[in-house]
């Protein structure tokens, strides 16, 4: 490697699980990463979630495990710094932030994550209108903050959990599956039974997509030990009654009969949405989503249009935290290999 190149750091964009895992790996490989995070706080979604599926491990704990080594090695994390664009530079890469600052780096791992589906767009569920309709993200934040929800146990008899809100739904323009919300719904159903033991909990689903290790077991546990009811039917509409309770309509497709029910509160399992960055990839996704597209070719899955920028995590498509972290590590390694191959030339 030339001297000129080594003086520049490697940039990591996004301090979520993918970005943090990438930074840790880069550190282990002998690089000096710098992290850019557009929010005030670090951690991405980890900073907002309560306990993680499938094992109910605290999100704060995982975040600490990821950030601890970086702090020790004095890795610089620039918060409130949004990266706007990147382009090739003689030093490697020129990174421009939203405030117009320009930074030269050898390369970068891009891990900008996802945004939650804005549930107001699914107007038939009344999110933002009915006070007893929450999203899964609201529930995580409330539990992380105070360990409880703003409903008095004495009043709560029935809780509904709606799967696939903003996913697998042509009506809102997202035809893909967000992958984590089924298991997250099972997890939150159990959490609801813990908070409201005498309430009945109903999960309304189209298919249950419980693909990960331990997920099916958690589903069985929810059915057997926590008496959660799973009803196969996508909820077609919610409406508020005079007491602020929620009237739900669906078909119970296993009996073939339309069903209605009054619920005390409802949790919408919001899906994930991506954002495209033209300097990373011009290609469209096969599923029509706005996630960053990448070569779906098994061996180059972290590559972007810029050879020294690797992409990782949920910005590529729905993923779990473990997926995102593994992808972050993989991106760090791919970047490392690329830089070595360049130095050898």
């Amino acid at each position, binding site marked *: 490697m030339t001297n000129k190149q080594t003086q520049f750091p490697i940039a990591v964009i996004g301090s979520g699980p993918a970005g943090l895992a990438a930074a840790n790996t880069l550190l282990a490989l002998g690089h000096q990463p710098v992290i850019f995070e557009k929010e005030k706080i670090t951690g991405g979604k980890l900073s907002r979630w309560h306990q993680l599926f499938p094992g109910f491990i605290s999100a704060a704990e995982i975040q600490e495990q990821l950030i601890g080594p970086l702090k020790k090695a004095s890795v610089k994390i620039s918060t409130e710094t949004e990266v706007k664009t990147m382009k090739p530079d003689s030093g490697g890469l020129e990174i421009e932030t939203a405030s117009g600052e320009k930074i030269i780096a050898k390369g970068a791992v891009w891990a900008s994550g996802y945004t939650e589906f804005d549930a107001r767009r699914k107007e038939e569920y009344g999110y933002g209108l009915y006070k007893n309709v929450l999203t899964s993200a609201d529930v995580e934040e409330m539990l992380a903050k105070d360990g409880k929800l703003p409903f008095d146990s004495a009043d709560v008899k029935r809780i509904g959990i709606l799967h696939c809100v903003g996913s697998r739904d042509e009506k809102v323009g997202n035809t893909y599956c967000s992958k984590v919300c089924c298991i997250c719904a099972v997890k939150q159903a159990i959490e609801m039974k813990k908070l409201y033991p005498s309430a009945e909990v109903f999960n309304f689903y189209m298919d249950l997509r419980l693909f990960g290790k331990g997920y099916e077991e958690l589903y069985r546990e929810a059915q*057997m030990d926590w008496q959660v009811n*799973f009803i196969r039917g996508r909820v077609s509409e919610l409406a508020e009654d005079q007491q602020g309770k929620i009237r739900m309509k669906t078909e119970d497709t296993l009996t073939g009969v339309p*069903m209605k029910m009054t619920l005390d509160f409802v949790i919408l399992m919001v899906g994930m949405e991506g954002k495209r960055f033209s300097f990373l990839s011009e290609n469209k996704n096969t599923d029509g989503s706005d996630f960053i597209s990448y070569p779906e070719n098994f061996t180059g899955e972290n590559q972007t249009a810029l050879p020294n920028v690797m992409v990782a995590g949920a910005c590529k498509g729905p993923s779990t935290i473990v997926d995102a972290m593994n992808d972050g590590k993989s991106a760090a390694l791919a970047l490392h290999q690329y830089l070595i191959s360049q130095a050898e030339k």
Partner: protein
Amino acid sequence: MTHSFGYSISQSRETNWDKLDHRFADKLLDLEPSVRLCVGCGSCTGTCTAAPRSGFDIRKVHTRFRRGEAGAFVAELEKCMFCGKCSMVCPRGVNIRNVMDLMKKLIEA
């Protein structure tokens, strides 16, 4: 006094959870908790000795029973021969033959 105009107001056939009587279902779940594990796969109905000729659908019947519509199936329950094939195929280990038996007993009691 009420009038007739030659037609009546059609009754709703939907499952209205708020108004159904869930006592039988709760009892069933107490006595045979394994039924909670049902995933609605249909193996039981697929193999059922009584199903092909009688239209008896054990999966549907026990699901509706659990929804609180116990009374609607008295006649259906007579079609089961208690052969137990259903229990043998269930991927979730639900003891359906016993579910069948309990549903009959609960309704008869």
